[in-house]
């Protein structure tokens, strides 16, 4: 009897370990890579940048769209206050080219994933689950919300995100963009290593 209980306890302790060992775990290379060559995709994004400069007089960028959307929501609740803020005097809370770009990006990625049989439809990424457990939805959503918040604040302060600075600013040889991108990676690498490798 005691032996059965002990065996049961031992099994319960071992099973989660086995489950993690059987899944690809926290090795990113054990999961599927890109469908297309990253060099081809990068080169095409470079060509796309030329097209946005030529046809729209705009560099690719994404983060300002979220700021405009937030301003539109802010105007619903506190119109005067929102319009009084310095940032929203320079960047009006409205649907503009960049908001459409971000909306389009959702659709384009859906199309690519659908055509390539890569639609996920999941709340928890497998590698997150391997590290933080299958019951970590609240933790994931909390981390994602906080992460999004820090990113938005940081990108507004730095003047752009991985698109605006990371691709468009760097290709125009802006010193500030190169400084910002290095800092994106310094902050990101330190935090990711703490999350996954400590």
């Amino acid at each position, binding site marked *: 009897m005691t032996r059965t209980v002990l065996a049961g306890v031992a099994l319960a302790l071992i099973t989660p370990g086995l489950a993690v060992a059987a899944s690809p775990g926290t090795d*990113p290379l054990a999961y599927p890579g890109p469908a297309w060559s990253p060099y081809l995709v990068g080169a095409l994004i470079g060509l796309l940048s030329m097209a946005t400069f030529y046809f729209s007089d705009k560099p690719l960028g994404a983060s300002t769209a979220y700021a405009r959307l*937030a301003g539109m929501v802010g105007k619903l609740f506190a119109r005067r206050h929102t319009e009084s803020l310095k940032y929203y005097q320079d960047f009006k809370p409205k649907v503009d080219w960049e908001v459409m770009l971000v909306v389009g990006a959702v659709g384009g990625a859906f199309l690519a994933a659908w055509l390539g049989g890569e639609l996920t439809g999941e709340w928890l990424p497998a590698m997150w689950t391997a590290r933080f457990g299958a019951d970590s939805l609240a933790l994931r959503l909390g981390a994602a919300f906080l992460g999004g918040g*820090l990113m938005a604040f940081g990108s507004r302060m730095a003047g752009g995100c991985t698109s605006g600075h990371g691709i468009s600013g760097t290709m125009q040889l802006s010193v500030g963009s190169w400084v910002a991108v290095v800092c994106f990676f310094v902050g990101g690498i330190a935090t990711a290593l703490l999350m996954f490798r400590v």
Partner: protein
Amino acid sequence: MNMKNDVTATPMQVGAQQHELPIDKGGPDKDPPTGQSSTGKQLALGLLFGLTFGFLLQKGGVAKYHVLIGVLLLEDFTVIKVMLSAIVVGMIGVFGLYALGLVKLHIKPTRYAANILGGLMFGVGFALLSYCPGTGAAALGQGNLDALAGILGLMAGSYFYAEASGFLGRTVEKWGDRGKLTLPELVRVSPAAFILVFASLLVAVLVVVERTTVR
């Protein structure tokens, strides 16, 4: 060439800036008074470019959680390959169009304190969310529903920044403000020569990355 650089330029810098391609860096970094970015045609173009951008991001694998966190763990270099390829092609292409007088540049201002502090904050957020503002939209499109929480966070953080924008504009964003400074100006060579050397250097980095890493 903007005023700030004219005022602070040493005679040597002025000389360096008078090479065959003096850079016109575009207007101030805010909405133009006429609002030409929200005409129907431009909204449609934005959507079309967005569809293409999202399609490419997904095919490049950079809408995937493990690919993005993988670069921050220094184990999966897909993101680096996509970014550097885009920079090399875009740099040559956009400056080429600029030299032909076909496009205007939109160079982002260099503000050292804000670039560094904001950049580090962005990085911490990048690891927590593991999608960035562009790839987050692509992640949602491919069905990663956790990106929704990230998008709400991006909106909340943006509004929070707007609340602080007056104060930050008077303080942090003034520290180390160098205006629209570019790398060729910093090292005092002509843009064309700089691009030639720099593009070769970035290609060399890509070759090394390709040869020394698994993915």
